[in-house]
Every structure is written in structure tokens, then in C-alpha cells.
């Protein structure tokens, strides 16, 4: 660990504010951390003595656990605060929560909040590093990074790669982080879904809009299939899950009509039989579990870099406790 030559700055709020080089640094730094996961002793001392709070205002299983593994594998001391049963559910405001964390000299805060902008709100008010683990429908940068890392693993380069995001883009922070990151790295990005679930002026983010899944499938090299929340049907955005599956679901029949084999990604948790059929999710072109594995590595990289770790020293850090 050296100095404060922070490659990312103080916080990771989203991929929109990052430069292509900053995104590449995170991806490159994640590489040596991947291997740690496969070791018998999955621990490095790089964050020893650092305290991290995982502040989850919204329920989350996989993101929270992924962060917690990443933190523990880097030897940080961690505390989890969930919305239920904490002061958060007793009406404490975000600014008071922030002040309390500041008073306890926390080094880093990982925050998941239902309000877009909550992570930057917190970051502006405390000296600790803040990592956005999802703020409303805004961004989920570590998910975007792990998706991009997975694509890079598979295709080698992102330049010119065609990635289509399928589903509820309107409510999806995953979609936004993917769009910002992929566009910056030279990929071509498409979005496809019912018009009721595509946000206004989405084309202006530099993406191509597909009205028909079949067109998207013909065009793309990879599909990132978004979860369709049950509430969307209750709110009237789509008339039924059955029809959604028939018109926008990723099925093997649909993929068989594609001119080439497509890589299939999903940020999880999946609704099998709604946005994605089981034979696709479990099929040979699905990298859904590799995404989960990469998630831990990417989060380790982000934690390491925000703590001031130099990108080129990540390799050395890996070897430091070599068995």
C-alpha cells in the first residue's frame, strides 16, 4: 500500500464520471485478485486495519455478500448495517447517518440506497471513501465493472463489441452503469425492451434501440438480460409476465435463429421463465456464474484502489502471501 496516488479518486459513485483509463485500471487490477478466490487461504493483508461499513438501506443478498467477501479477503474489519432493525428504520436521516459514521472514523462506506443520488450525497458529506452499491435507478458501478470484466474475459477486447441490454432499462441501475462503461470502452451498446420500460431519450446516451428482440439477437455478440421485477406488472408497465416472456423473453428458440452464438449474461437474481428461460440460463453460453465470481474480484480491486493501492502493486500484493 503506497501513498494516495488514488487511481479512482475518493469515491466510486458510478461509471459515468470515470475515464476509459480509470475503468481499464479497475479491470486490470481485478485480474490478479481473481486467483485469490481459488486459493486454499483466500486472504491478503492489504486492507488490514481498515474499517468498512456496508450500509444497505435496501435488501440485498448477492451484492452485500460479494462486497463482504471482497472486504474480508483483503483483511478489512467490516460491519453490516441493514435497514431493518437499525436507526435507519427509526427515521434517522441520511445526513445524520453520515455524521455518525464520520464520528466513528470509518475508512470506507459501501452504500445501497433506494434514492438515486444517495451515494454522491453521502460522499460529499464524509471524508471516508464511498462505494456506490446501487442508488435507485441511477448506477451500480461494481456490477457494471464485473459485467465488463466478464465480457473482456470472453472476447478479449471491447472495441466494437456489440452488447445488447434486454428488459426493464427504465428502472435499472445495472443498465445505466453498463451503458456508461461499455460506451467509454468503445463497445456498441443496444437496448431492447417494451417501450414502456425504456427511459425517455435513451438514444442520447449513445445506444441503439431495438423494438424487437429478434432484431437485437441478430445484431448482438452478447446479451445482458435484466431482471423483470414483479411490481412492474402490478404497476401496469407490462400487461402480463406470460406475454413478456413470449415477446421479450430470451428463449433457446430465439437464440437458435441468431446467426452466431451469443454470450448470455444476467445480473441476477433471475426470474426463470420470465425474462430468461432455464435452458438459456443454464446453457453453454451462459456466463452468469462467472459474473458472480468476477464480482468479488472487481470489488476487491475497487476497495484496493480506493484505499490508495497502486494498480501495478496489485500483482505484488497477490504474491506477498504466496503460499
Amino acid at each position, binding site marked *: 500500500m503506497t501513498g494516495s496516488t488514488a487511481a479512482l479518486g475518493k469515491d466510486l459513485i458510478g461509471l*459515468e464520471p470515470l475515464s476509459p483509463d480509470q475503468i481499464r485500471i479497475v479491470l486490470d487490477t481485478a485480474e490478479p485478485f481473481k486467483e485469490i478466490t481459488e486459493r486454499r487461504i483466500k486472504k491478503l493483508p492489504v486492507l488490514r486495519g481498515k474499517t468498512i461499513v456496508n450500509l444497505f438501506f435496501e435488501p440485498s443478498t448477492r451484492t452485500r455478500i460479494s462486497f463482504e467477501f471482497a472486504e474480508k479477503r483483503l483483511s478489512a474489519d467490516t460491519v453490516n448495517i441493514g435497514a431493518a432493525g437499525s436507526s435507519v428504520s427509526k427515521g434517522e*436521516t*441520511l*445526513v445524520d447517518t453520515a455524521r455518525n459514521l464520520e464520528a466513528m472514523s470509518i475508512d470506507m462506506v459501501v452504500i445501497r*440506497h*433506494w*434514492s*438515486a*443520488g*444517495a451515494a*454522491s*450525497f453521502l460522499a460529499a458529506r464524509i471524508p471516508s471513501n464511498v462505494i456506490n452499491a446501487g*442508488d*435507485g*435507478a*441511477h*448506477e451500480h458501478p461494481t456490477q457494471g465493472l464485473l459485467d465488463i470484466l466478464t465480457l473482456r474475459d470472453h472476447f478479449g477486447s471491447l472495441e466494437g463489441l456489440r452488447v445488447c441490454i434486454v428488459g426493464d432499462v427504465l428502472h435499472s*441501475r445495472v443498465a*445505466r452503469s453498463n451503458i456508461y462503461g461499455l460506451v467509454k470502452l468503445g463497445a456498441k451498446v443496444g437496448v431492447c425492451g417494451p417501450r414502456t420500460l425504456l*427511459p*425517455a*431519450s*435513451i438514444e*442520447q*446516451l449513445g445506444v441503439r434501440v431495438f423494438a424487437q428482440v429478434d432484431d437485437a439477437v441478430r445484431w448482438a455478440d452478447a446479451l445482458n438480460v435484466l431482471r423483470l421485477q414483479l411490481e412492474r406488472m402490478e404497476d401496469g408497465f407490462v400487461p402480463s409476465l406470460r406475454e413478456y416472456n413470449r415477446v421479450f423473453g430470451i428463449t433457446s428458440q430465439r437464440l437458435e435463429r441468431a446467426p452466431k452464438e451469443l454470450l448470455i449474461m444476467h445480473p441476477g437474481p433471475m426470474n426463470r421463465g420470465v425474462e430468461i428461460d432455464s435452458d438459456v440460463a443454464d446453457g453453454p453460453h451462459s456466463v452468469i456464474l462467472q459474473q458472480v465470481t468476477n464480482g468479488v474480484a472487481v470489488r476487491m480491486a475497487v476497495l484496493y484502489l480506493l484505499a490508495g493501492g497502486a494498480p501495478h502493486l496489485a500483482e505484488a500484493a497477490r504474491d506477498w502471501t504466496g503460499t
Partner: protein
Amino acid sequence: MSRVLIRGGRVIDPATGHDADDCDVLVVDGRIDAVGRGLDAGDADPVDAGGLIVAPGFVDPHAHLCEPGWEHRETIRTGALAAAAGGYTAVCAMPDTDPVVDDPASVGFIVAEGRRARGARVYPTAALSAGCRGERLTEFGEIVDAGAVAVCDAGKAVGSSSLMRLALQYARSFGVPVLSQGEDRELARNGVMHEGVISTRLGLRGKPAVAEEIGVARDLALARATGGRLHLQRVSTGAAAELIRAAKAAGVQVTAEATPHHLLLSHNLLAGYGTEYKVDPPLRTARDVELLGAALADGTIDCIATDHAPRHYDEKEQAFDDAPHGVVGLETAFAVLHTRLVRGSLLPLQDLLHRMSTGPARALGLPGGSLEPGQPADIVLIDAEMAWTVAAGDFVSKGRSTPFEGACMEGRVVRTLVGGTTAWSLGRATRAPGPGGPVET
């Protein structure tokens, strides 16, 4: 007999088109007595207006003074004084207090508190429907007798077209306008900012511009059908302005207001989730700003409204979704519009003064907005050259959230006279007793 002579200013009366340098205004017993060069001062108290603009005091058709019920945000007293500090000599208080101003007693309370404040005159507006619930009409006759100058469900569009029609019809018997926020509430529901590329980028729920277009179109159609007097509040889109322009050309009895923030700022400013830009209706696109400016210039928009809506600082210090909309405007309205529109050669000074005084006074049927003899001596003195910087900490209002914090201004109100008495002057908090309340007839 009290006499005041305002001497040697550039006197502009947008009601008559009068604009003359080195001109005097003589005030006798709280009313304008004469305007002209070299008036005989006699024993009048002199007020030196050399180098200053002398104009009718501003009239705000739309302010939230928050009392009763929200005194931590603003009181009638602080609101009336803040108004005077911004050159306003009259403000219309919105009825969305707690309890709602929907009966004669509540209206009387606003009038009485306004009189005690001795700032700008405070004219209550009363709820159109009981509790602003949009179900049944309030007693227009009683509340108008008690002093209400208009009816409206402040900030809430009337959802029911049949109730809106009844209001426009019923109000005709009492000579008051119906104020309406043109908006399709169902379509605008849940939105926290303008729906467009910025809301998409930020992941915030948007209010589509078409919600305003639909609401305004409905209200205009009802005004035409009933012959009622409609005043549209806080117009924010170019499309709505175009509908109003066409309705006016067709003879519909309609007036409209726009706020300084909608006339000057676009949704691009929300990129950092700043709650000081969270207003309702939301800041729209740069194109809307342009079209709204054109509508102000050609008179489609009759008047400037501040939609002064103070919030406690705690309330604004929250994540964007959770923070309430609303900003203060009374103390910056003239300066920001003068700096950006008049100095930016987009609007002549006379027209700005018109839209801030004559326009709103006529739209709401209030005294003032003119320097003609017999009018109340509600007068503002302006130093058009004075440079200053907006600092919310110096506001008289309790509200501190402004989208113009730190902005450099050209032009400042230096003195405000209400009924011939100085209610406010720059550099000293004048507490001289003035009339404060509505003009007695």
C-alpha cells in the same frame, strides 16, 4: 396630512408607458398624488431618488408564506418582510397551509397577520376546494368577503374537470379569478424532475412535459366554455405557452404567470442532484426556457410569480427523492431577471417592470401596479447599476434554498415603500409603522 416627495429619479410607470428622467413622485396620505418634474415639495418628507429608478412596487401573485402550520419554514411576518426586501409591495399568499385556508376565519387570520407584519401587503388566496382535497367547492362568497382575492388549490392541480368547471362558473359571481396549476396529475404522479435525457441519466422519475400541456389545455377549454376568469400558475413548458397564446388570441379570459427559475434555468442543472434545483413544476429543457422567455416578452405570460416556497434547511439536506420541492424567490426575483434578461438584451426594462407590477396586479384584480394619481403609494426604488452577489445567509426570509446562490447580480432594489411609508431599505432594517395590510377601499 402626510406628504412624501420622491425626488429626481427615473420614473417608469409601465401601466401608462410613462418613462422620464429627473422626475418626482408626490405621495399624499399613502396615495400617489402627482408625478412630474419639479413638483413643489412644500413640507413633504424628501426621498432622494437621484440615479435610481422609481417604479410601481412589485406584486407577487404566488407565494407560500407557510403560516399557519409551517412556521419553521416561514411566517407571514418574515414572508412579508422578505417580500418588501425584494421590492414587492404586495404578495398573494397561497392557501396550502396547515390547516388549509378554506374558510373566512382563516382568511381573516392571514389578513390580520399581514397587517401586523408591516412589510409588503399580504393578500390571501383561499382554497378552491375544502382542504384542497379536490372534492367540493369552498364558500367563495364568504371567503371573498373576508378578503380572499382568488381561489386555488395551491400547487395541486384540480384533478376533477367537473369541479374545475364548477369553480370557474361559480367564481364569476364574486369577481375573483380561479388560479390553476395546469397539470394532469396522474401523468405527473411520482415525477421528481423533468422527464428527459437528464432524468434518464440520473435514474430519477420524470414528470413529462405533456402532463402540463394536457392540464393547461383542459383548463383553457373550461375557461372558454364557462367564460370564467382563469389564471394559470407556474407555466413551465413552451407547449403550454403556445396553447395560452392561441387561447388569448381566441378571446379566452386567461392570464398566466411564470417564475424566474423557469424563465432562466434548465434541467441540465440537476446533473449533481442539487436539491436547490428541485422545484415543481420541474425545470424544463433549454428550449422551454427560450420559448417561455419569448412568451414573457410578447405578453402571453402576463406576469412573474416567485412561487416563493421556503423550506427548512434540514428538509432540503436529503437525498433528491426525499427532499421537498420549492425554493425562495422574493428577494432575488427582480435582480436575476434584470441581470439575465434585461442586461442580456432579451427583455426591455419597462417590460420587466410591467410583468412584475402592472401585469400581476391586473391579472389578480389588485390595486397597485401603477403610479397614476389615486393609486396606493406602493413604490420601489431600484439602483440598476448596483453589483451584488446572492448570499442566502443574508435573506430576510427564513428560507435559504435558492438556485441562484453565489450568482453575481446587476441591479438591486434599494427601497420599498408601501402606502408611502418605507417598509424596507437597503442597509437598514426599517421598522417604521406602515399600513401593511390590503389597500382599504
